[in-house]
């Protein structure tokens, strides 16, 4: 039994990679993931990737922003230091709308970026997890779990038949930057 953990099929053309996915799926070979330097339309549906849950995070952070913005205004403008501005009541709702709105947007946007970074291991200082360095440059990569799919010769053949320019057998999941 080899130590190969993942088989990577590296393509130079996205359409060939898409054809490769079809070929593998026809032969009941499960695909671990695909890595491409740019978004490919329709690839999520093909791979059966579940829709992103980022909108839930967005809603949560947005709601938090609304509460924070409103609380800040209420504390400063009504509770702690009420001021007479043009004779208007301290607790004047129209006043509160723009700031609450802006804080909602701010917290929502920052929260979404933070969530995205967290999920993708992109925090500054963290070592990026990459299975193939050229997938961030000019190659379209299909990764196959070698332990789950044992017929490596078949996989190799299918990938090359689809137009893979290189097939790698990696003992480690992630490549290092060293």
């Amino acid at each position, binding site marked *: 039994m080899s130590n190969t953990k993942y088989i990577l099929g590296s393509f130079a053309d*996205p359409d060939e990679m898409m054809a490769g996915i079809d070929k593998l799926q026809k032969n009941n070979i499960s695909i671990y993931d695909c890595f491409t330097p740019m978004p490919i339309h329709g690839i999520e549906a093909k791979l059966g990737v579940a829709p992103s849950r980022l909108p839930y995070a967005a809603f949560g952070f947005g709601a938090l922003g609304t509460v924070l913005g409103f609380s800040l205004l209420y504390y400063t403008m009504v509770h702690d230091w009420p001021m007479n501005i043009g004779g208007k009541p301290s607790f004047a709702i129209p006043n509160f709308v723009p700031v609450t709105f802006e804080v909602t947007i701010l917290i929502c946007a920052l929260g979404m970026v933070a969530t995205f970074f967290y999920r993708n291991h992109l925090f500054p200082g963290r070592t990026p997890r990459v299975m193939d360095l050229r997938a961030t440059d000019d190659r379209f990569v299909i990764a196959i779990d070698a332990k789950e799919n044992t017929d490596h010769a078949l996989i190799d053949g299918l990938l090359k038949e689809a137009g893979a320019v290189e097939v790698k057998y990696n003992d480690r999941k992630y490549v290092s930057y060293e």
Partner: protein
Amino acid sequence: MGNHSHHHSYNFDERFEFAGKAKMFSIIAVVVGLAAIAFGLLSSEHVIVERTYANLLLMGYYFTCVCAAGAFFCALQFVTQSAWSAGLIRVPQAMASILPIASVILLVICGLGLTTHNLYHHWNADGLTDPNSPNYDALVAGKSAFLNVPGFLIRQVIFMGTYSIFAITFAKLSYKEDLEGGLTSYKKSFKLSAIFLVIFGFTTPIWSFDTIMSLEAHWFSTMFGWYNFAAMWVSGISVITIIVIALKKAGYLNWVNENHLHDLGKLMFGFSIFWTYVWFAQFILIWYSNIPEETVYFYKRWEPEYKPWFWLSIIINFVAPLLLLVDRDAKRKQNSMLFVAIVLLCGHWLDYYIMIMPGTVESHRGFGIIEIGTAIGFVGLFVFLVMNKISKHPLAAKNHPFLDESLNHQI
């Protein structure tokens, strides 16, 4: 997507057949509308006649705005070189090509309203600008260099005439492209669209100042133009959505799918928020500075006869799309999109109602035969003219350079 070809079997020469029930109902609606308008105009009560004029202005303006939004939609797609809309571009094109008719109707309504003093009497009455007259009004006199009858009519003709020329040119170039192919029409449309958008952007605020804001000539708001533009654009998108869904339900436009609907849904959702943003921006500036000549506008709308409608307008035009369209699936389903589009069209009727009635009939506002009849009549006329136009040409712009990309559109 390169050589990754998608095989389709769409008939791009397919034509919509405008006949049967759709045609009959639209003609009946026009007749109902004419009857309601005649009933109102022939009334012996001055208040009823004025109310009819106000309703004519409302629907005439709404009609023209929706058609202008069709032209704006076309121009926007060309300038941004958008591909997604190429498969449904015939719908806004048809709306744009009836802009000249809508413009003439609105011009007649404005002209008759001015001469009979049923509209715009805040600035168009005897002696308002004459210092020796007991009716002298210093504010109106100060604005009279801009706000006078010839100036008003000339601006209306120039603005709507210019929009109309561009609108029919966009449609014509696309129909020509069907026959000749090539990129000549597309390139020409791109250039014209860029020019049109600049003209449109600078003149629609002035157009709405004239047509609607001058009903209450003592009041002004620099936000009013954008506020009107937002209403125009949301209702235009809603109309495009309704026509697309109606055509799909009738078995046409098979190449338009939930992805295209999703984009229309995003525009409807986004610009409803934009409408609210501009509405609120106008409100808060006036509320905050609290200057009597500005607050008068909202005081009038907070009288008991308008206040519930004033709030209802915000709920329909903001809360309804916000809650009903925030979900991704809701934007991709025909029935939910159709429902929201119809709700928004009713909502913007109410929006225009709140803009127009306090400056015309004031406390004599009503909601009855005249309102409903006039609205039905204009809807019937719009449906008749647009569907008739759509039936005259193939449903797809088959030589549109981005048609294939539109077919494969996916979001």
